[in-house]
Every structure is written in structure tokens, then in C-alpha cells.
């Protein structure tokens, strides 16, 4: 049966995260944290742990709970607050790969500390020439003593500069673009042969270029079999940023509507102009359609049927990127000059939407995949 309603547990999670965003995550605080060295607040991270959010989407035997819908509840609220804490990088991406590939001992060690808020993780997979191609891994791993030595360059690793441990993909066989031969390793970013170059990102977060030169890595899971794990993790991340986009769009629509009711030009509120009314109606429709799609298809992200999962994720990403583009651009245009400024919040929401469109597969990439899955 199709149910759009949240379960009681999901509703509790939603209430708790929305309350936090509303009461404890004011824009000026977020802004200050975003400009700090790590790009987020360790104090907030501790609160996330206390509230149980660092366990969302992780396996129950590691203290985790929930699936794609719970992730979506969290991410939508994070979108509303323009949250910069590394939940996506740490819990969903790095934590997700460990949960899917790691041994019981690895899960216990790494996820336990993650859920407790004691350890921040990051996922280093993309490479300078890979764009959105998940199999394009050129970083290599060779046996070295009883461990592994990694060489390569990982690009735009989200929050890679504040992580205590990195989950890194590398190849032990095959050539770039082969699905076989890809492995995952746990790497200490402070270890020998690891160079981390952190930088701020255009959406107020942080990322890093990571260069590995004989860096020591511990194999996570089976050798050469990591492709499906990485693919599923990136699918889940794509769905998660779609949920985040819903929150971002909701705020932009509300701000635009509010502004149109207060800003006067030509002796009337600008919201009285029919040309602008129609455009705000389009923004409303774009968000509502995206929300409906997410409500119905988000559960399919948990489907054991890979094709079903990927169709749902790609449909979501295409729709949310399209809607996010419309809402983001129109919000700036309808506000006028004020939304061009760094001081005004709308510009920051617009920027985040613009970067989401370039993460975890862009619209064309997902359209191609969707088309291939619906022969």
C-alpha cells in the first residue's frame, strides 16, 4: 500500500530536527561556523550525536536506524537551515560505505566512534578526470608488507580536511572505467604519504584535494568488489541532496513570496503584478511536484532491486535539479538586486542549489541512466 504519511518515529525525527534548525541554527551562527577553519561547529556536531542523528541510515546492530526516508527527513531540514556540518560526508558517504563493505570488527570500531560523535569521517572517491563516472578510478593500491600502499589523487572530497579517517577508493586490478578491481580502504589522513589540501566551497562548505603517495590503507571488505557499494552509496547521496533541495526551495519560495508582499514599486506591492504572480505560481508547482515525487519514490531508494533503486534516484535528481534551477534563479530575479548580495540569505540558498546540480551526477547523467534503465 502506498503511504505518504510518516511513521511515528519518522515524525519524531522530523519534529526534533526542525525544532533544532528553527531554534538553535540561526543564519549568523551558521555563517560564522561556515567561515571557520573546519567549516562547521564541533558544538553542533556534538548535539547531532546527542540527538541521535549520526546514526540515521546506519545498520541497527551498530546502533543505527532508518533508511532513505529518515535520511530525507533529516536532509530536508538541513536544507532549510543551510547546514554545513559534515553529515553527508561523514555519516551517509563514509559511514555508508563502511556499513556496506566493512567487516563486523571494522564496523564496530569505525561506526561506533562515528555515531558517538567522537570521530569524523570523509569519503574520497572522485578524481580530477572522473566527472560523474563512478568506475573511473585511477588511484592504485599495491600490497605492502601485511597492508596496502595507495597512490593517486582524490578530488573535491567533501569535508576531507577535517576527517579523522578517510574512506578511499583505489584499484588493485583492471584499468580506469573497469567496474572490477576497485577496492575501498581506510586511510589515516595524518599518516605518511597523505597530503590533504582543504579549501572552502562555493556553497559555504569545505572540501579537499587528497594526494596519496605510498599511503598506508586498510582494506575494507573484499578486494576488487567495491563498485556496487560505491554505486549504492552515491545513489543514496544523490537522493539525500534531492531532499536537501526540497528544504532549500521551500525557504526560497517563502522568502520570495514574503518579499513580494512587502516590497513596493510603482505604488503597489510587487506581488500584485500578474507577471510575477505567475512566476511564483511556477515556483510553487516546481517544489510541490518535487515533493510529491520524493514522498512516493524515496522509499524505492532502499529497494534491493538495483534497477528500481536507480530509476527512482535518477528521476528524483532530474526533477529536483530542474526545479532547483527554476526556483533558485527565479528567487534571485524576483527579489532583484538585494538577492545578489552576500548579506542577504537568499543568495546562499541559491548557491547551494547550484552546487547540488553538479554533485552525484548532473541532470544529463541521470537522464542517460534513466533512459538506459527504461528500454
Amino acid at each position: 500500500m502506498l503511504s505518504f504519511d510518516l511513521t511515528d518515529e519518522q515524525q519524531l525525527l522530523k519534529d526534533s530536527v526542525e525544532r533544532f534548525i528553527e531554534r538553535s541554527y540561526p543564519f549568523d551562527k551558521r555563517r560564522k561556523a561556515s567561515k571557520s577553519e573546519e567549516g562547521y561547529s564541533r558544538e553542533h556536531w556534538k548535539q547531532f550525536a546527542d540527538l541521535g542523528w549520526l546514526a540515521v541510515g546506519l545498520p541497527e546492530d551498530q546502533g543505527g536506524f532508518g533508511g532513505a526516508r529518515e535520511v530525507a527527513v533529516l536532509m530536508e531540514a538541513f536544507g532549510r537551515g543551510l547546514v554545513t556540518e559534515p553529515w553527508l560526508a561523514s555519516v551517509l558517504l563514509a559511514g555508508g560505505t563502511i556499513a556496506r563493505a566493512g567487516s563486523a570488527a571494522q564496523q564496530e570500531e569505525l561506526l561506533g566512534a562515528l555515531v558517538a560523535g567522537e570521530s569524523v569521517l570523509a569519503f574520497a572517491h572522485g578524481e580530477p578526470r572522473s566527472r560523474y563516472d563512478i568506475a573511473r578510478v585511477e588511484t592504485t593500491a599495491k600490497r605492502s608488507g601485511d597492508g596496502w600502499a595507495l597512490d593517486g589523487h582524490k578530488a573535491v572530497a567533501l569535508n576531507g580536511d577535517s576527517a579523522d579517517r578517510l574512506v578511499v577508493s583505489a584499484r588493485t586490478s583492471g584499468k580506469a572505467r573497469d567496474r572490477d578491481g576497485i577496492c575501498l580502504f581506510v586511510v589515516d589522513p595524518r599518516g605518511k604519504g597523505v597530503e590533504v589540501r582543504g579549501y572552502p566551497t562555493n556553497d559555504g562548505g569545505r572540501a579537499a584535494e587528497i594526494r596519496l603517495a605510498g599511503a598506508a590503507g586498510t582494506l575494507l571488505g573484499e578486494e576488487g568488489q567495491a563498485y556496487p557499494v560505491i554505486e549504492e552509496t552515491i545513489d543514496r547521496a544523490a537522493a539525500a541532496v534531492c531532499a536537501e533541495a526540497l528544504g532549500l526551495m521551500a525557504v526560497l519560495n517563502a522568502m520570495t513570496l514574503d518579499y513580494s508582499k512587502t516590497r513596493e514599486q510603482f505604488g503597489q506591492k510587487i506581488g500584485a503584478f500578474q507577471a510575477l504572480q505567475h512566476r511564483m505560481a511556477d515556483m510553487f508547482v516546481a517544489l510541490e511536484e518535487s515533493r510529491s515525487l520524493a514522498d512516493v519514490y524515496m522509499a524505492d531508494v532502499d529497494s534491493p532491486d538495483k534497477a528500481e533503486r536507480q530509476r527512482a534516484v535518477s528521476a528524483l535528481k532530474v526533477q529536483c535539479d530542474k526545479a532547483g534551477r527554476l526556483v533558485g534563479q527565479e528567487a534571485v530575479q524576483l527579489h532583484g538586486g538585494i538577492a545578489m548580495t552576500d548579506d542577504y540569505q537568499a543568495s546562499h540558498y541559491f548557491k547551494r542549489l547550484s552546487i547540488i546540480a553538479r554533485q552525484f551526477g548532473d541532470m544529463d547523467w541521470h537522464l542517460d541512466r534513466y533512459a538506459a534503465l527504461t528500454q
Partner: protein
Amino acid sequence: MKITYTAEEESFRQSVRAFIEAELDPGTRRKVLNGLNMSKQDYVGWHGKLASRGWSCPHWPDEHGGAGWTPMQHFIFDDETSTAGAPGMMPFGPDMVAPVIWTFGNEEQKKQHLPGILSGEVWWCQGYSEPNSGSDLASLRTKAERDADHYIVNGGKTWTTLAQWADWMFCLTRTDSSGKKQEGITFLLIDMKTPGISVHPIITMEGGHEVNQVIFDNVRVPVANRIGEEGKGWTYAKFLLGYERSGMAGIPQAKRALARLRAIAADQEDADGTLADNPRFRRKMSDVEIQIVTLEATMLKLLAQQVQGKTPGPEASFIKIRGTEIDQHLTELTMEAVGPYVAPFAPEALDTGWNEEPIGPDYAAPVAPGYFNTRKVTIYGGSNEIQKNIIAKHVLGL
């Protein structure tokens, strides 16, 4: 369009090319071609070189220092300078206030101001928008009160582009608020060094400082600096907007942006080769190229009329609409071409003298800031919604 050039035109092209080769500063050129931050000197230096050749304001009437070119010569000049990476002209002096001065100003004002604009020694800024008067420009409230042979100006302007570099401002002020809002506006030329003027930076979303708020606190402006009649400023302001908007086609910049996009696409790997080989992306680039040549054809027609002395009218509005839409489309396609490397925020990489290793490909750093910043073009100069109102009212008669 197949353009055939006469021998004279071909030789003109060669002389433009030779001039650029000899005179364009390599540092300036590098910044233009790579979308890096420009200094005032980049603009002023190139303007000065052009002025010494008599080419700084070629579209001006001959008696004020124009080059007397044919439309085709203008076309060739724009094409060559843009391809070579010469900076665009800042429009405020040459394209905006100068036509107002030679059309409505007195002899004294022409003598005082036109030479400095022609030579590039005097930088102008535009005092039009106010915090509560954007699209509804005529509602402006910056007050100018007569005190013997001076006006005393109080109030403030906003979105003033590069006011931090400006020597003079042309400014719309209110001298009478008793009648219709379009009446009672007076067009003043204000020396930015006058006591009581303060310039406050506005940081835009990409992190740049281009626009400002300018506050007037009892600023004394000689009545001699008034253009035309008191209370008739709206007429001059609208005349100027026609010039401003037709100058917004931005075809040279669009061609340069397209060339940069093609180069980026050729560098980005795709499943079977590069993004430039991907049929879908090729179609997107071709689509925008067709939009550019279409606008160029329109501009050529308009330019021919302008050379015959016709003032740009409401048709300038559609040039502004299309030119700015194309700009935005190009910055968005460039975001798409660069992919995940649009994320790093590296403002220092846009400054001269920065020589650390770039994050990702060396063309990536200006791309997202360029996309963000270019959202302004459909807002400024009369938003595109206002341009559509002008077309509906003055062209379609609705």
C-alpha cells in the same frame, strides 16, 4: 551569414590586429581571456592606448572625437578586440553620460567633460538606483535643494558600479516632489571628491566588490553642473537608458565566453572522448552560438541606423533582454562543462600574482563566481521585466 570584406575592410582589420599586437598589455590580456579580476589600470591603460590612436570612442560624432567608421568597421573592430582579449570599454563615460552631454549639455560642459571621457582619464559612475527605487526608478528621492548658485544634495544611491574608482557621477536628483514623479527630476554631474560623499562597498554573492552604496550628506553641487533644465532630468535619463541598453548586447563578451566554453568542453573527458565530442553537449553549444549570431545580426542592423544618427529607441529593450539571457546561458553551460570542480571557492586564484597550483583545472576557479555574478544582468539596467513592459507599451501599443 557569409560576410565578404572589401580590400579596404581587410586592410582595416589588419591595422586593428597590428595595433592590438603592439599595444595591448599582456597581463591585461591574460586576465580578460581567463576571466580573472581586472584592476582600474587594466581598463584605463587600454583606453588610453586606444585614445592615442583615435579609437577610444569610435561611435561618437566626428566633432567630439569619433572615428567616423562604417558599421562594418565597428563590427571588425569589436570582433578583433574581443578575440584578442582586450578589455571591454566601461560604458558609464563613453556610452552613457557622453551622449547626454553632447545632446543636452552646454558648450562649457562639453569642453569640461568630453575630453576626459575620450582620453579615459576621468572615470564616471551612474547615480540612478536607490534602495526604494529600483525598477520604479522615477520614484527616486535623493533630494537636491537650491541654495543660491549651488544645489545641496542629500540622500543615497545604491548598486553604483565601481563607484570606488570614480572621479565623477552622473546623478538623478529630486528638485520638486509636488507633481508627477517623472517631473521634478534634475540631472546633475557630481565631482566625487566633493565633501559629504561617502562610498560603502556592497559585497555580492560571489564575494566580489563591484557595487556600492553612495551616501550624500549635504553635498554642495554647483548649479553649473546641471544638465539642461531643472526638472527635466527624466527626459535625459531615458535618453541615456536607450544607449545603455543597446550597449548590453555584449556580443564580443559572448563570443569570448563561447570560445572558453568550447575549450573547457574539449578538456573534459566524457565516456567516448571529450565533452566536446558528446552530441548532446555539442548541440547545446551550437544552440547558444545560433543565439549569438542572431543577436549579432540584429545589432548590425541597429548599428547601421545609429551611424545614420538615429537614437536607439524601445528596440534597445529587446537587445538588452536577449544579450543578458545569452550571457546567463553561457555561464550556466560553463558550470555544466566544468562539473564537480565548480565547487571549490578560490577567490585568491582570480587575483594577479597568485601562482600556487590551481585546485582542479586552471580554468575552474572563475566559473561559479561568474555564474553567480551574472545573475545580476537580467536585474540591472532596467530589469528584463521592465524591458518587456517597455516593448508591450511602446512597441506593441498595449
